């Protein structure tokens, strides 16, 4: 079994890199888009709030796999041709963005109104209120569900293999196609995914402790 794993490792390395790259792109892009839309959902004018609400509810109501096939096979009909890699990243990002919107809404919405008012009263602008008063407090509430979502993104990135992209999952399948020894490879794959996600959870706990200033 060990020899099979050693044989497979070089083949998996590149797929693992793709998995990390997809995950990183999805996490970063969805974080930026999700925070922007989430702030829009909490503080924006009514039309923007409705638009974000519809976006979030729609995306979260669709299975991620359907969303991915829709982006890959459906968008070309709208004259938007994406390489399979970017179609997969776009679909996963849309899905993750809708979740980040909800985390932001929950975290920012949990900060008492008096905090905004106190920040207004000393003359902070909207942007300053967000960055100096609201976000630092909301961060602690945002972090646990978000890290949870990040580990989901790493695991969910395995779906890109269905569009023929050679990520870790696809690389595992390719090696199995040659060796006809499925179990050692799947165990190895599970361990790699687990190692990444456990490291993330661990980092999250450390981060939470650092931001655990007393409240209420």
């Amino acid at each position, binding site marked *: 079994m060990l020899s099979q794993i050693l044989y497979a490792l070089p083949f998996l390395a590149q797929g693992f890199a793709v998995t990390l790259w997809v995950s990183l792109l999805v996490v970063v892009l969805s974080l930026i888009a999700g925070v922007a839309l989430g702030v829009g959902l909490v503080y924006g004018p009514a039309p923007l709030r409705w638009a974000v609400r519809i976006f979030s509810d729609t995306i979260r109501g669709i299975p991620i796999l359907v969303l991915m096939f829709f982006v890959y096979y459906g968008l070309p009909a709208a004259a938007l041709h994406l390489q399979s890699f970017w179609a997969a990243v776009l679909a996963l990002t849309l899905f993750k963005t809708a979740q980040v919107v909800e985390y932001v809404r929950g975290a920012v919405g949990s900060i*008492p109104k*008096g*905090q905004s*008012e*106190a*920040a*207004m*009263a*000393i*003359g*902070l*602008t*909207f942007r*300053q209120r967000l960055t*100096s*008063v609201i976000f*630092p*407090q909301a961060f602690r509430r945002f972090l646990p569900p978000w890290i949870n979502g990040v580990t989901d993104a790493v695991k969910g990135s395995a779906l890109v293999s269905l569009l023929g992209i050679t990520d870790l999952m696809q690389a595992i399948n390719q090696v199995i196609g040659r060796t006809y020894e499925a179990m050692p490879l799947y165990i190895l794959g599970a361990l790699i995914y687990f190692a990444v996600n456990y490291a993330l959870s661990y980092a999250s706990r450390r981060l939470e402790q650092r931001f655990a*200033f*007393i*409240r209420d």
Partner: protein
Amino acid sequence: MATSLNDTTALLDIAGVSKAFGSVEVLRSVSLKVEKGEVVTVIGPSGSGKTTLLRCVNFLESYDSGSIRIDGKEVGFREAGARQRRSERDLAAMRAETGMVFQSFNLFPHLTAAGNIMLGLIKVRGKSKAEARQIAEHWLGRVGLAHKADSLPAELSGGQQQRVGIARAVAMEPKILLLDEITSALDPELVGEVLAVVRSLAEDGMTMVMVTHEMAFARDASSRIVFMADGGVSAVGPPKEILAQETTNERLRSFLARFRASHF
């Protein structure tokens, strides 16, 4: 007492301000002038519009009609425009001209006592960190909390938190300090330490408008008392005059009677 109505140099000039929440009129054409250095206390039954009036002065609440000027400048709206709201940046700059202390303190829980005071000094007044720290320490000393500079709000008592709240507001050197029932959330034995700070600021000549239920404080420490009822100013004048009106002003009499009944 400088209360002449023709005085156009009033530091705070509230003129005919009205506001409704839906069909409920909370402010009915309220007018009030406050001169530099005055301490004006606003009393009245709950629901009389005291707090709303105070929140209009720094535009935490908008109002439907009338005008509020500080040092001649309209607070929430652009001067010439037909009630066109100021830009976010403008509004922030106007708000920095007033300081506000809240009933529920509203300290920033993620910042230390000094950090709470430094935030506005750095972000709004453009002070360096070292300078802001120095000012924060000065004001913490003034409110008797020099030794608590690096404590988080959660580590302070209510009275201490409120004194930090006051220090945070005055450190910005506002033209007017607005105090919104600042002792109402405090245990009775902590009220004194907070009022002592307010009194010392009054002695320094800080202009203040204070909504309060502390009648003894209103009587002893204010230049004028404003009695509000049903969204309007029912009586205004020096404490002695106001208390003397108890015989002629039916609303004032019933307010004070109820007040005495509940506070002995």
